[in-house]
């Protein structure tokens, strides 16, 4: 088996190299949280002189805890809204043959193609004009809107393959379409829901532009915006920023690790 072993070595080598490439900057970031500002800049490859949690304390002190909470609230609410609303829409679209509804599907897909950037100006003026600035509840709505198209496509593909027997049984029992969806379809769509959730969670957790423009008060800032606040007009507390960023990664990485099994299995239906 020498040929086999050589191939294995090559494969391990490639994957390990890439993993190293990926991990080193992140490790550097975590390491930097323990350094002083001077060490951070002057001794990039070295270890911290003294290992202190000072930077973490400062990051936490500036409100990292509150930013974290805001991010969690906004992300959870948005993801929940996206999943339910997209699921409902995709269900209807996947089960119908009407030409009108196919047009609706096209419209929703077109929505995926619209970048927030392109409509940032009128979107912002609309939101500001409606007095929706600096409200955690308010930002959930545009976040949801921008997550719906992609998630609807995801669910559409999944529902096309969903076995119809369970639905027929429920309908014969007299369930309305809506009740069927909530009591039968949704609970059995674990993999699709989990994967949609993790994708959207990652995007919304890191969303920066809308949050920057819409959430400016100290009690509404989310993580990406709050971290910038560690930088002043003229100088930044870099170790604290790195500490804040290190803290920021943990929750979402944890969710990814937990959701992994569902995440991978369900995407098999995506290409259809």
């Amino acid at each position: 088996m020498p040929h086999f072993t050589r191939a294995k070595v090559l494969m391990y080598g490639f994957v390990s190299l890439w993993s190293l490439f990926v991990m080193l900057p992140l490790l550097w970031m975590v390491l930097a949280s323990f350094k002083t500002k001077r060490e951070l800049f002057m001794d990039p490859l070295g270890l911290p002189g003294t290992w202190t949690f000072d930077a973490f304390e400062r990051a936490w002190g500036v409100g990292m805890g509150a930013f974290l909470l805001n991010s969690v609230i906004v992300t959870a609410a948005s993801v929940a809204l996206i999943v339910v609303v997209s699921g409902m829409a995709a269900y209807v679209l996947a089960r119908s043959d009407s030409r009108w509804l196919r047009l609706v599907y096209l419209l929703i897909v077109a929505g995926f193609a619209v970048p927030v950037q392109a409509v940032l100006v009128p979107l912002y003026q609309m939101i500001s004009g409606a007095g929706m600035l600096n409200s955690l509840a308010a930002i959930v709505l545009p976040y949801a809107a921008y997550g719906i198209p992609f998630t609807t496509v995801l669910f559409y593909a999944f529902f096309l393959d969903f076995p119809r027997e369970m639905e027929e049984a429920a309908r014969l029992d007299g369930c309305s379409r809506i009740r069927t969806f909530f009591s039968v379809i949704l609970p059995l769509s674990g993999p699709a829901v989990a994967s949609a959730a993790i994708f959207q969670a990652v995007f919304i957790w890191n969303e920066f532009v809308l949050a920057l423009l819409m959430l400016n008060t100290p009690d509404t800032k989310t993580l990406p915006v709050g971290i910038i606040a560690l930088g002043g007009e003229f100088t930044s507390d870099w170790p604290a920023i790195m500490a804040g960023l290190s803290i920021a990664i943990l929750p979402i990485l944890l969710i990814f690790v937990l959701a992994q099994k569902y995440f991978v299995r369900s995407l098999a239906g995506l290409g259809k």
Partner: protein
Amino acid sequence: MKRYSTKGRTGPLTRHVIGAAFGLAVALGGGVPQFANAQEDVTIRMWALTNPNYPEFIAQAAEAFKLTHPNVTIDFQETPNEAYKTAIQVALVGSAPPDVFFNWAGEDSNRLVRDGLVLDLTGLANEPGQFGTTLAQSWLDTFSVDGLIYGAPTDAVTKYFYYDNAFFTDNSLSVPATFEELLGLCTAIRAIDPAIVPIPLGNSERWKMNHYITLLNERVMGNDALRADYSLTAPDDQLFTNPGYVTAWGKVLEMQTAGCFQDAPNATSPEVSRTLFSSQISPMIFCGSWCMSIFDGEGYTDYSLFRFPPIEGGASDGNSNMVVPQGLQVAAATQHPKEAVEWISFLTSPEQGAKFAEMRGALPSDPSLLSALPNATEQFKWVAADMASLAVQYNVIDVEVEASVANAYLDAGVEILNGTMTPEQAMESIRTAALAAKAAMQ
């Protein structure tokens, strides 16, 4: 204007009497009679940039303010530098503008004035005890348009060359009296050790070079020659045609050739350049007055400062410097103009000015109590004294000039350093932008 709330129903005559009494009390400045404090509770919403210690400063000022204005609450909100300009503009046209807000003097302020979003404070500011009567005229001019006061300057920042005392002493170097001597310094430092970067330049955010060219323009042509071009009021065929502009860019190239800067200034952040100086890896830096508290905070204090030297044969004698005033303005849509102005006047009073200097390491607009500051460093006092001795002050280009022209200047700085543009080409691009902006303003 102000609406007086009356509890219960009072006839129009009574209301007028109360109103007149209050007006009299306010006009008398100082002691507001007890009954007039039965005013509605007023909340002043205030916005400012995120800056270390500033929220603490505002908090203690709000407490002190409550002693004379018990019914006024200050609601303070800070926003990161990046988003501030956008956020404040949108807020001012939006549904819930702040009453008092931070702004830079120059184009940022002028734009808001043009669009009618800022309150004309001339009347209120000149009431007894308000800031129009306490601040020096040159300071008041910074936020004035056509003689009307549109804001109160709270502080200013300025730029100096910093140098490491030990390095200069050890190598028998002296403070340059002219620009040419500055170039000589760079050459001398490189001769000592070619690996040392004499003046690290952190231009990754484009404004550092802009500060250089602001100084160089004035040193070459003198402040008066620049006014018409910067305000875009010069006739089209003369706009930015002064050959001095090209000469000024040429001086940047001379600094590059003399080895003053490192190789990759556009990839170096201002932060890194400052750390190179404060770690004593580089012996000099062209840095803002705000850098003093940064260096002190890092434990590095053995430095001194000197002004950007005059150029031999240039139109400026060097008794001038770049000063960027910052201050507070009042939104035109405010419901509480009087309280807003009183709050601003309080913040710019000598006592608060001194506190501001102490907590923020900033140079306040009313420096009368600065010399008494117990913790002021030698360098800080030197800068304050130097600023007071200036004959001429001028703002930095990217704050002074219209946005697209400022943008052209910023980009030109990047390209000059990269060698992708000649000084002539740079002025071509700036002149084009200026002509377009001028046409759009008409």
